[in-house]
């Protein structure tokens, strides 16, 4: 058996599993087969060891009997978790979700198991999950990083007269019109054989959809829609977000696909939680700004392209105070988006349903972030220029001016905003004004690289037109901001700054990387690196290349195969 990882979407991954020279894309179903039971399938078959069939997964008898495996690749069940034995006999290369029955009953145990397996050295082995894989659960199981899922539930359900869909379980005898057009359903028969063929087909279709979603970085959205029909899934997803945030965050790309945040669970997506935490850990207002203007978000992204934001900016511009005004957008589910970060994922990549009514979780979240901003960043003046979010925000801060009266786009409100700004008395003992653009770039750099981002901007000048600007120091380009990525892309010179600051480094042996850096060459990777981050590839103190991370730091260190960093510039 050989297993290669080809792509990732959080903990979920796409790979290829090779058994006896037959290759199967993962995540995959493992279709159970016995002498009595045979179902047509595309993926690998899961059979008993004594049923010889190339290209399948084989399970040996338990260790209680002499039938215990004689074959290298067979899956050994050992003493099935007996507390009287701690012998681990499996050599198949798979890793399992253990205590399968208790994790199906208890969501916290399920999440514990996932965290255990995915934090261990078995991270790169294919993870097999038995008994749990109803079609509507496949997306979630894949989301947790399960690679192979057996079809025992499809068989048991068919035996019990249960008709499976990607939206849950239906009693087959209650169906008037078959809600599926697979071959078995077209026959309109509900015997064991036809039900099983339908269940198999429903699971295979769903698995293909899951693979598609992973390929496009959209699995989380599929999961959020699938969990609705099964309390076990909702519990598990919520607990994953609450108790396995760190694990999920480490595997979540820094720049992901655009998404729709349409459910309660969306508020706790790892990439959204990361945004909120990173704001509080790494963010400071651009130096020189003294007036905070809180404005609502817009449906159009980036916000500054929307009509409403053009009006806000016009009012600010004509007030004459623009150089010291700091615009911060108040939004669900991100909380706050400082204007200069509006290109940074996911600020321009999310979409939310807008009703004008904010629920308690949303209110609480914006209140927390706005009050953090106001109390830690110390503005001379705070202006609230908000719409539906006015009430929760205003109630969480004190000492501010409200200019919108709940209708931020109206002429009156805009005039009021302009007047309040104009009337603000600037005393001339304020700090020496630096380039506002550089300070905004510094803010992005800090958000992206932490303290090392500050070092990048020291002594740098900006060239070009925002947002497509280049950072130049001593005549050499060190990096550039691109509107599409919303992040800084570094040159080798920029990489040296990171290396000196001691972060975002991937250490390699003494060789000169050409083309791309493969995991086998990685000695160590700094823990803050996320997929999609710019990293410096170093040997000792020497920067050998810069590029974009393709793996989480743990995977870079564990893996023997696969591209770890996509190199942009090599020395």
């Amino acid at each position, binding site marked *: 058996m050989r297993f290669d990882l080809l792509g990732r979407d959080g903990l979920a991954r796409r790979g290829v599993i090779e058994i006896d020279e037959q290759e199967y894309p993962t995540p995959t179903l493992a279709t*159970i087969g016995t002498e009595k039971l045979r179902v047509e399938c595309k993926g690998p078959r*899961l059979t008993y060891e004594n049923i010889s069939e190339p290209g399948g997964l084989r*399970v040996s008898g338990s260790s209680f009997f002499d039938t215990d495996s004689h074959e290298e690749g067979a899956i050994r069940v050992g003493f*099935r978790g007996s507390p009287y034995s701690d012998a681990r006999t499996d050599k198949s290369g798979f890793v399992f979700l253990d205590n399968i*029955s208790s994790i199906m009953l208890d969501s916290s145990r399920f999440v514990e198991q996932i965290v255990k397996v995915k934090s261990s050295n078995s991270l790169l082995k294919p993870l097999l999950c038995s008994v749990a894989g109803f079609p509507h659960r496949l997306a979630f199981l894949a989301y947790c990083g399960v690679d192979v899922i057996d079809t025992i539930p499809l068989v048991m359900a068919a035996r019990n007269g249960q008709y499976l869909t990607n939206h849950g379980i239906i009693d087959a005898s209650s169906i008037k019109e078959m809600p599926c057009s697979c071959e078995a359903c077209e026959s309109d028969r509900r015997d064991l054989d036809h039900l099983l063929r339908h269940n198999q087909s429903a699971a295979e279709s769903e698995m293909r959809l899951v693979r598609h979603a992973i390929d496009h970085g959209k699995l989380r959205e599929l999961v959020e829609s699938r969990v609705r029909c099964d309390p076990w899934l909702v519990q598990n997803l919520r607990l994953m977000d609450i108790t396995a945030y760190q694990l999920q965050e480490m595997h979540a790309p820094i720049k992901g696909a655009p998404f729709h945040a349409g459910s309660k669970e969306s508020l706790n997506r790892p990439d959204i939680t990361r945004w909120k935490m990173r704001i509080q850990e790494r963010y400071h207002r651009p130096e020189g700004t003294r007036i905070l203007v809180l404005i609502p978000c817009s449906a159009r992204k980036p916000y500054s392209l929307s009509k409403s934001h053009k009006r806000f900016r016009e009012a600010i511009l004509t007030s004459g105070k623009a150089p010291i005004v700091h615009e911060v957008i108040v939004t669900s589910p991100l909380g706050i988006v400082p204007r200069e970060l509006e290109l940074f994922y996911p600020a321009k990549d999310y979409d939310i349903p807008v009703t004008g009514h904010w629920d308690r979780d949303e209110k609480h979240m914006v209140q927390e972030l706005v009050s953090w901003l106001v109390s830690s960043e110390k503005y001379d003046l705070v202006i609230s220029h908000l719409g539906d979010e006015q009430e929760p925000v205003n109630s969480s801060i004190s000492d501010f001016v409200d200019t919108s009266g709940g209708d931020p786009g109206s002429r009156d409100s805009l005039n009021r905003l302009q007047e309040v700004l104009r009337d603000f008395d600037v005393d001339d003992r304020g700090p020496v004004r630096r380039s506002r653009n550089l300070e905004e770039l510094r803010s992005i750099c800090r958000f992206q690289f932490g303290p090392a981002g500050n070092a990048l901007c020291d002594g740098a000048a900006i060239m070009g037109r925002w947002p497509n600007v280049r950072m130049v120091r001593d005549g050499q380009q060190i990096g550039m901001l691109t509107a599409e990525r919303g992040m800084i892309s570094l040159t080798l010179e920029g990489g040296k700054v990171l290396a000196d600051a001691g972060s975002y480094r991937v250490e390699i042996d003494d060789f000169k990387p050409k083309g791309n850096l493969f995991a086998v060459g990685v000695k160590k990777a700094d823990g803050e690196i996320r997929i999609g981050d710019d990293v410096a590839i170093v040997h000792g103190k020497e920067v050998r290349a810069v590029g974009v991370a393709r793996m989480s730091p743990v995977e870079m260190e564990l893996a023997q195969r696969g591209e770890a960093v996509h190199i942009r510039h090599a020395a």
Partner: protein
Amino acid sequence: MTGFESDSCRRPRRKDDGSAVAVWTEKEFLKGKLLDAGVIILRTGGCSHFHTGGCSMCGYNTVSKMGISAEHIVKQFERALPGIGDVQVLKIYTSGSFLDKAEVPEEAARRILEECSSRGMRLLVESRPEYVTGERVDQILSVHDDLEIAIGFESANDKVLRYSINKGFTVADYDLAADILNERKVDLRSYVLIKPPFLTEAEAIADAVATVKHAARTSATISINAVNVQKGTVVDKLWRNWAYRPPWLWSVLQVVRASEDFGVKVVCDPVGGGSIRGAHNCGECDQTIIDGLKDFSISQNRSRLGSKDCSCKDMWNMILDIEGLVTGGTCDLQRFFRSQRR
């Protein structure tokens, strides 16, 4: 694995040193005749093995009590006797080993043996094999010689004894005890367990049949016992996690039928049969099968066994077929996928 040790869900019971746990009468088929038998369950200090971990399925020590003296045991016995009246066979169970002098002191054992001898009653007692020594058996035979000694053999597979049951003895230990009894012409009754934990239904059937075959060579009677889920045991913990299902009655029936080939008297009365904690089927066909097993046990007439096919037999067959493919522990597939959950 942890979590199995610290179980304290035991029902508090009133424990009276001077009265037996239970007393009843039943029928016993012996050498072609149907006889009256009395059963006395004595309260003792409990099984010696229980104090060193105990068996995964056994919760019988909940009736045991520390500090029971020989006088207490004799008192329990004497108080129980009038209740059973005139019987030809007396069965004395202690939830442990009658032959263990630490559990049943010699003077108490002697009193019981003498009483049986004077009344001409055949006596059946239970013991772990380590207490079945030539010396001890001879000692007992010198007081009373119409004896049957029962040993909880459970499985003829050392790995099952060790890693599933935690029995604390080996097949060789049982064989040695069996030889000691056979040499002295003491009848041996062997208990065979159906479905210790961590085995699939199919493995459990095969294991029980192999055990009947092994025990048939040295035993006068084989008692087939289906696991029932007793509170506070490892099996109970598994059962509450839906990781264990007591055997199907179809499995019990299959083992009893297979034992026909070995030419030995077989009895089977599943404790808790038909309930969710005992051997059970779907609920429809359970009673017919249990009644059949009971009838068979007191008649050895195989035509009494069985039931007409029930729809649950298809489920049982399917589980026999696929359960071994479950990975990541054990799972009661029937409970997880029963339709009434949704």
